[in-house]
């Protein structure tokens, strides 16, 4: 089992969700987060005052999939989330030791 963590531009969320659904992913957890990478931040001006905004809003997706499906899911995210502009985000993939469905007690791949 693999855990895919993707940090993407907020307005790409719906496209990514559709793309993941198309490759059979059954569940996604989404969090609104702030952060920065190569994009750094931007400046905002309020009357006379200029402020540098270092942390930009992003969406953080967590998707648990069977190992065999991980590459397809990652490809789907890359394809859907890509704009070619700086700030498109990143994807991290790690292994999952255990998974349990709370309602039934099913474990591992059956729980995904």
């Amino acid at each position, binding site marked *: 089992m693999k855990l895919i963590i993707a940090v993407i531009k907020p307005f790409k969320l719906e496209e990514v969700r559709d793309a993941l659904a198309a490759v059979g992913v059954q569940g996604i957890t989404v969090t609104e987060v702030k952060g920065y990478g190569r994009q750094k931040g931007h400046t*905002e*001006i*309020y*009357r*006379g005052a200029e402020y*540098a905004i270092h942390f930009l809003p992003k969406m953080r997706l967590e998707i648990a999939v069977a190992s065999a499906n991980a590459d397809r899911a990652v490809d789907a995210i890359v394809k859907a989330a890509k704009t070619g502009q700086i700030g498109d985000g990143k994807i991290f993939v790690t292994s999952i030791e255990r998974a349990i469905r709370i309602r039934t007690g099913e474990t591992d791949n059956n729980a995904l």
Partner: protein
Amino acid sequence: MKRFWTLLALPCAGFAATPAFAQASTINAADTAWMIVATALVLLMTIPGLALFYAGLVRKKNLLATMAQSFAAVMFVSVLWFAAGYSLTFSGEGAYLGNLDKLFFAGMNLDSVNSLASNLPESLFATYQMTFAVITCALIAGSVADRMRFSAFVLFIIAWLFIVYVPSAHWIWGGGFLAGMGVMDFAGGIVVHLNAGVAGLVAAYVLGARRGYGTENLAPYDLTMAAVGTALLWVGWFGFNGGSALTAGSRASMAILATHLAACSGAIAWMVMEWLTRKKPSVLGIISGAIAGLGTITPASGYILPWHGVVIGLAAGIVCFWACTWLKERLRYDDSLDVFGIHGIGGILGTVLTGVFAVGAFTVTKELPQGQQGLLEGNVGQVVTQIIGVGICFVWCAVATFVILKVVDLLVGLRVSLDHERMGLDITQHGESVHT
């Protein structure tokens, strides 16, 4: 009730001198109806108008504390106006201050009127003027936002009401020496906006800059609140300037028209300035320009024609934009929400422009058949008179504000501690916070 007694007295008229209670009332029903509405509109400017406008411009941790200051102004200034403010401003012929005859609204009853507005019940005139004192004190809160102790703010506005607002309102509106000199201030360019702006400037210097000013992000928490607040101020201003006619006639409606045009022109001018220099027309810029236009038209609103309002509004947008950016940076003060840059500069500009645009025909009386004419009608002297009025009130307000702040500092301390400023005033001053 009054009519009943008058009818009852009629048959007796041939037998006895007419009793005092049967004298013909000068109170006009139409004027009274409009001024009740105008009074409500001006109170609406402070709560919720100004409370929302200011709260939206501070950081989330200081939102409730900023609203509390608007409410404090309503609570304390209203009661103090009843206790002594009204009497010291609008009773008596003194050149510098009124008298104590109307302490606690002494003598006020259903039939009483103030000679300055004998067409209105005295209770209405006194309440209308009360709402002006309230908003002037509330405006100052913008300069000291994010760092002033609540107790210090309350003590400050109590003293400031009596030492700055009451005297200058008497000088100009209560028959004092500036009125005698011919200083024109229809609805408060000096009394309200210059006073609040100058007090804000002095307070910004005395309190010092907010922690992190110029280095940390002090961006507004929620500009939607500020935009809604501005809209309420804008509409409320119809009562502020239109009501200052104290009648329901064409003077009030002309003032409202000029006021609205100035607000629109101010917003356009500020927006264009920002678009040209900063590449984007911000919402904060649009609402700031509207307030600048409204503050600047205030002293002129009842003396001018509609096109004057457009010119004054455009001037307000450009000059106040300059004051809030270039001038503020040069003078190195942290007036958190630009009370001086918008109200102070706008009030001064508008008061001087009143001397330029005043139309004599609006102020014709038996004693003054030409009316009070401005520069455009060939009366250069009016501009000079306006500048003298501005100068006297500027100096009085600045010196008095400085002294009051120093005394309050000795009593309770003006500024919250560094830790409390970092934690925010909502939790440290009021024990509450915004959970959204």
